[in-house]
């Protein structure tokens, strides 16, 4: 905590965190949600590329892109892409089902994040293996700080 700016950022973050306290997914509920999708399978790191800006001004609209390294042939392709977050009220973000007809394994969308946290993308391959990538993001204005007028 060296500068006034850092201090203000930190207190601001606390204020926002308190504001959206009522229901918040914790890393534990995220793990639970991941297990629901993956089952007992091992999740390996690699193959998946998660594209998310590391510093986010506005938590309401965040460009997210996931791509998976796969030839996308009928024999070897990506079956599903799931994205999870740690601290939104709900751990799920999106679950997409695709197949060899996609040509390239990937998708992009826009998401909301309620707090600075880790976002995880998991890909399910046709051979039954799971691969993941994660990204830490800092959110300065949380999605849930927005008020109705």
């Amino acid at each position, binding site marked *: 905590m060296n500068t006034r700016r850092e201090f203000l950022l930190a207190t601001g973050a606390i204020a926002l965190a308190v504001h*959206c306290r*009522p*229901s918040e997914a914790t890393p534990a509920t995220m793990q639970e949600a991941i297990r629901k999708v993956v089952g007992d399978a091992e999740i390996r790191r690699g193959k998946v590329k998660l594209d998310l800006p590391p510093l986010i001004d506005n938590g*309401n*609209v*965040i460009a997210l892109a996931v791509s998976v390294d796969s030839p996308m042939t009928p024999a070897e392709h990506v079956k599903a892409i799931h994205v999870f*977050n740690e601290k*939104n*009220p*709900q751990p*799920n*973000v*999106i*679950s*997409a*089902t*695709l*197949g060899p*007809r*996609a*040509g*390239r394994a*990937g*998708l*992009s*969308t*826009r*998401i*909301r*994040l309620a707090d600075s946290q880790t976002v995880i993308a998991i890909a399910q391959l046709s051979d039954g293996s799971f691969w993941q990538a994660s990204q830490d993001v800092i959110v300065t204005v949380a*999605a*849930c700080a*927005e*008020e*109705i*007028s």
Partner: protein
Amino acid sequence: MARAVVTVPPKAKRGEIIEIRTLVGHPMESGFRHDNFGRPIARNIITQFVCTYNGTEIFRADLFPAISANPLLAFTTVATETGTLEFKWTGDNDFALTATAPIAVD
């Protein structure tokens, strides 16, 4: 009535990978917010998106409240034959919206 904008290249070569971008007007009310009186605002989101190519499903997505308002989804497919791409969004409060886009493949 909600409006959808779908971007599909009108022409493609057989076997070419084309990018499809979809955008639909929807508030995606998360269900976790409160109004000025502190009353919770009911959830109203799109829960599912399905894209079919001449009747065959090529992409499907389950959406959650963490998706921004006016959901954008971009993905790819291989241009296999001339025909129609159909896009279907369904969600809370019986929300249903369909859009189509023609594609010519040579």
